[in-house]
């Protein structure tokens, strides 16, 4: 028994010294003493959210070591107590009652007493535990179901969009052409500088990179073939689609997502206006009209970039042009254009779909924009793969 009391004192003194060393006179002071009727903790000074932490552990530790039948808090010299202080006083009481001891707070200022009483009266409901995430297998299953649901929704949306586009083709009057024009300007015309710049640099870089290895074989001339084929068939449409996904797919998702969050989509539906016809069709039309044009520009500027390199390597421009003409056929050009039309549809449609799927809340629109870009890029790659197989088996 004696040893235990000594060790309790030691803990408390140590706590007091540490406290005094750290904050000087303003912090609370804790003193513990054992008497016949149990442990007395004297707390003096201020117990607020800034200072309570200094005595929290020592006070609980003293209680744990002493395990008295009666715990008395002497609060006569307590100058201030807020929610944090009340939490300490209540926690001491809770631990004391957990092993059926007596607990008393003496000489607590009535103002602080009211505070402690308010918190002690409120029902001790603890938060309900969140439903567990489930085992690894369960999570994989859930993810699979989510993915499957997404594919189903995408399929349904493709169907809905096809019907809406067919209807628009039969009755062009129902298309909101004003909005389509506006979108064409935003997604197409305004993207021209960046597409032109990137196309030019891409052509330039590829020409430089390939010039050195081809020079080793004396095949410098074939840089023109490489640039021409790769830009027209592959990189022009791909570059355009990626820029479109980043610039416009995300914009469509954010725009429609905001409309969803502010109930504007609901408002359209109850006016009897189909959101797909009203919002998605003009955007898809604009994207389909603009993507091939942008793609042509990207390819053209890529060829210009290649020309710059060839000129700097000492080839006359005419030579480059003739070499290009011999390497590239109209089929390559048409194939690239066909691809970019499909890319345009895919990027615009997935952007709009993600926008319409927006849930509520502040972060939902951001999520949709991100999902639009990611899904857009994935679908572009998949479609490009399909085209590659198709062109190969058709011998194009």
């Amino acid at each position: 028994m004696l040893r235990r009391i000594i060790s309790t004192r030691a803990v408390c003194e140590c706590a007091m010294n540490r406290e005094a060393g750290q904050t000087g006179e303003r912090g609370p002071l804790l003193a513990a003493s054992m008497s016949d009727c149990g442990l007395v903790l004297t707390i003096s000074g201020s117990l607020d959210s800034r200072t309570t932490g200094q005595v929290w552990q020592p006070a609980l530790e003293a209680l744990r070591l002493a395990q008295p039948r009666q715990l008395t808090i002497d609060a006569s010299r307590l100058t201030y107590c807020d929610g944090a202080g009340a939490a300490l006083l209540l926690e001491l009481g809770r631990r004391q009652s957990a092993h059926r001891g007596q607990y008393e707070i003496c000489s607590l200022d009535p103002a602080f007493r009211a505070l402690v009483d308010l918190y002690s009266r409120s029902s001790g409901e603890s938060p309900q535990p969140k439903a567990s995430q489930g085992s690894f297998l369960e999570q994989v299953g859930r993810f699979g179901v989510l993915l499957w649901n997404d594919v189903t929704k995408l399929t349904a949306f493709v169907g809905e969009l096809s019907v809406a586009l067919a209807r628009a083709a039969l009755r062009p009057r129902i298309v909101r052409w004003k909005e389509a024009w506006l979108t064409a300007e935003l997604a197409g015309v305004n993207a021209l500088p960046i597409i032109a710049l990137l196309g030019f640099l891409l052509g330039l870089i590829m020409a430089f990179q390939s010039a050195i290895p081809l020079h080793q074989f004396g095949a410098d001339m074939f840089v023109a073939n490489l640039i021409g084929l790769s830009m027209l068939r592959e990189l022009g449409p791909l570059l355009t689609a990626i820029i479109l996904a980043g610039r416009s797919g995300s914009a469509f998702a954010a725009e429609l997502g905001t409309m969803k969050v502010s109930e504007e989509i609901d408002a359209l539906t109850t006016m009897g206006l189909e959101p797909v016809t009203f919002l998605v069709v003009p955007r898809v039309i604009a994207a389909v009209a603009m993507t091939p044009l942008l793609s042509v520009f990207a390819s053209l500027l890529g060829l210009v970039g290649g020309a710059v390199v060839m000129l700097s390597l000492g080839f006359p421009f005419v030579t480059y042009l003739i070499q290009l003409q011999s390497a590239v056929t109209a089929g390559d050009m048409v194939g690239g254009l066909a691809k970019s039309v499909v890319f345009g549809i895919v990027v615009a449609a997935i952007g709009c779909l993600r926008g319409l799927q927006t849930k509520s809340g502040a972060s939902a629109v951001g999520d949709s924009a991100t999902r639009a870009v990611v899904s857009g890029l994935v679908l572009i790659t998949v479609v490009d793969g399909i085209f590659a197989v198709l062109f190969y088996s058709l011998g194009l």
Partner: protein
Amino acid sequence: MERSTPIIRVKHFTAAYDGVVLLNDLSFDVYRGEVFVILGGSGCGKSTMLKHMIGLYQPAAGAILIDNEDIVTAQGPRRLAILKKIGVMYQQGALFGSMTLLENVRLPLEEYTDLPNDAIDHIALMKLQVVGLGAAALKLPDEISGGMRKRAVIARAMALDPQVLFLDEPSAGLDPITSAELDRLIVSLSRNLSITFVVVTHELPSIYTIADRVIMLDKRVKAIVAEGKPQQLRDHSENAWVRQFFNREATAVA
């Protein structure tokens, strides 16, 4: 326009979300020309009820007849015909942010009528003037106050002269004066144009001003716990919770 004939009939309506029943087996009628208020505490499903009534959600069971046509099963042109009879004001207004007020009101007219352009302009402006927004017609929704926005939504909802207007929390976020002005507008439209109003709210002062009849939903029983005139419910309801609601008494004071 007989006041005693129902325009909306809700029959054995049950709403569920993710398999959890929110409202169970509700039946009630809304009569022509009345201001009908759906009342209830937070989270009791009043807005859900409204969204089912305007056909945005599919109920788990039951029928919702608007002018004898079931909005739950109607498809295509029949559904469109029902939607033309109703106008909706959403909690957040839902004006189209990129269009001026006039363009917002013009939109349903452009989509559904063959009226010439200047006639549409004329009608749209007329609707805006009725709600006191003639001067602000060419402003964007961002440029006007919250109270004006709510009135603009009413003007848009009235564009096609609907028989029923649904209002979701019309006075949410408005100061008492603006809120009272909105109430006066609702009463005036109801009297002068014989429009039926279905209003979801929990704003007591405005209920006394506008409501002809009230139903109260309680989330504990997931059903209607009271039906009648507001004064009557306040003073004579047998349900203690209903009296408590009308007298603004709190439960379980700490």
